[in-house]
């Protein structure tokens, strides 16, 4: 168990808005800024497109952390998408933490298309903090499939 946590490489789902954070990730790549390979990126048109339900589904399907990143306030391609999103996210984050989900499982950032280095920095921070929390368990759906059965049906 202790070992599991030590060698633990979290799976992090990152919803990145197409116009800023996704471009920021691209720039990080072009600029060869290193960041941990733990994020699975999902490109969305705008941070305002991210329904709280998506975040919960990611957690339910076993994501150890979820990051939503969009344009800085005032810079949203759709003018105000991220302003609405910000209100929703504040409510979601506070609610999840009020119910007792670990603080830091769900994180948010603003990263612009010009901030390649900052993008890598954000990913490093998020990965580190989720690593500290250990594997997610609280919201993960279980099929309660016994190990032997899983093995039995996996063999062709």
């Amino acid at each position, binding site marked *: 168990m202790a070992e599991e946590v030590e060698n633990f490489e979290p799976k992090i789902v990152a919803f990145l808005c197409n116009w800023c954070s996704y471009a920021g990730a691209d720039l990080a790549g072009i600029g060869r800024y290193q960041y941990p390979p733990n994020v699975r990126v999902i490109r969305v048109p705008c941070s305002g497109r991210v329904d709280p339900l998506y975040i919960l589904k990611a957690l339910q399907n076993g994501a150890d952390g979820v990051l939503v990143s969009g344009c800085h306030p005032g810079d949203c391609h759709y003018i105000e998408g991220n302003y609405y999103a*910000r209100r929703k*996210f*504040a*409510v*979601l984050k506070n*609610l999840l933490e009020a*119910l*007792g989900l670990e603080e830091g499982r769900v994180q*948010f950032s603003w990263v612009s298309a010009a901030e390649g280095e900052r993008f890598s920095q954000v990913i490093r921070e998020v990965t580190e903090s989720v690593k500290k929390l250990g594997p997610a368990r609280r919201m993960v759906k279980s099929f309660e499939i016994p190990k032997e059965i899983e093995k039995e049906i996996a063999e062709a």
Partner: protein
Amino acid sequence: MDIQSEIQKIAARLLKNKEVAMVIGYGAGSAPNRTAPVFIDKEKDVGKLVFNRFCVNNLSLYLPRLKEKGKIAIVAKPCDVRTIVCLIQEKQIERDKVHIISFACPGLLEKDGKTLFASCAECAVTLPPVYDTLSGEAKEMERNEPFTDRVADFFSKMPAERWEMFKAEMEKCIRCYACRNACPMCYCEECFVERSLPRWIGEGSEVTDTMIFHIVRAIHTAGRCGECGACARACPMDVNLAPLAKQIREDMLNLFHHQAGVDPNAPAALETFKPDDYNDFIK
């Protein structure tokens, strides 16, 4: 005159003058501590209208589905009026198609007839923010009955323990969705839990599926919830939904200075924004 007789009188007048096509109110239930919604369209039936402290439903849930009947009068507690205001704001009903009969609310009692409902004990709006006719005086009523605090204990715990408590409540849920169906603000023709393309949550009562239902429903009611407590009272399993409601209410108030359905001109909290909204939680 007491609230009940005034309601009957107002209803009789409205029906007689053909000002409304129907009055939705509370009628006698099948036990002394119950009431049931009644739909009255004849003046001679107004005697069926009752008012007591067991009027647990929020009748405004029927307004959108009955709107083709014409103008409707509704008996509404102040909290119910808040959801009517929200329904008007959300264009589910028209202001001039509803006649609101309200009153200063004495608060509701649990089935034991002695304990005040927690939502009533914490009620912030005991006088109707909007109405067409008022029965009784517009005077705050005292509520001295004891009530069971269902959040203090929860919020005094550490996160891991809170999660366990939340989970235990979710395990009680049988996913009948009575809470949702009793809520006037959950008027979606197809709720996300019932969608099958894609299917967002499993059909059964697996606990994380149930959690997602309740968390998302809480968020969907954020800034629109009139705090009537009808959802909690509808639950056959007595699932404690109060911590979710409380957290949402506090956020609406503290982060966005918003109380749903109190001011017809104030947009719902999540339908608007300010450039300098709370931003500290974002990297």
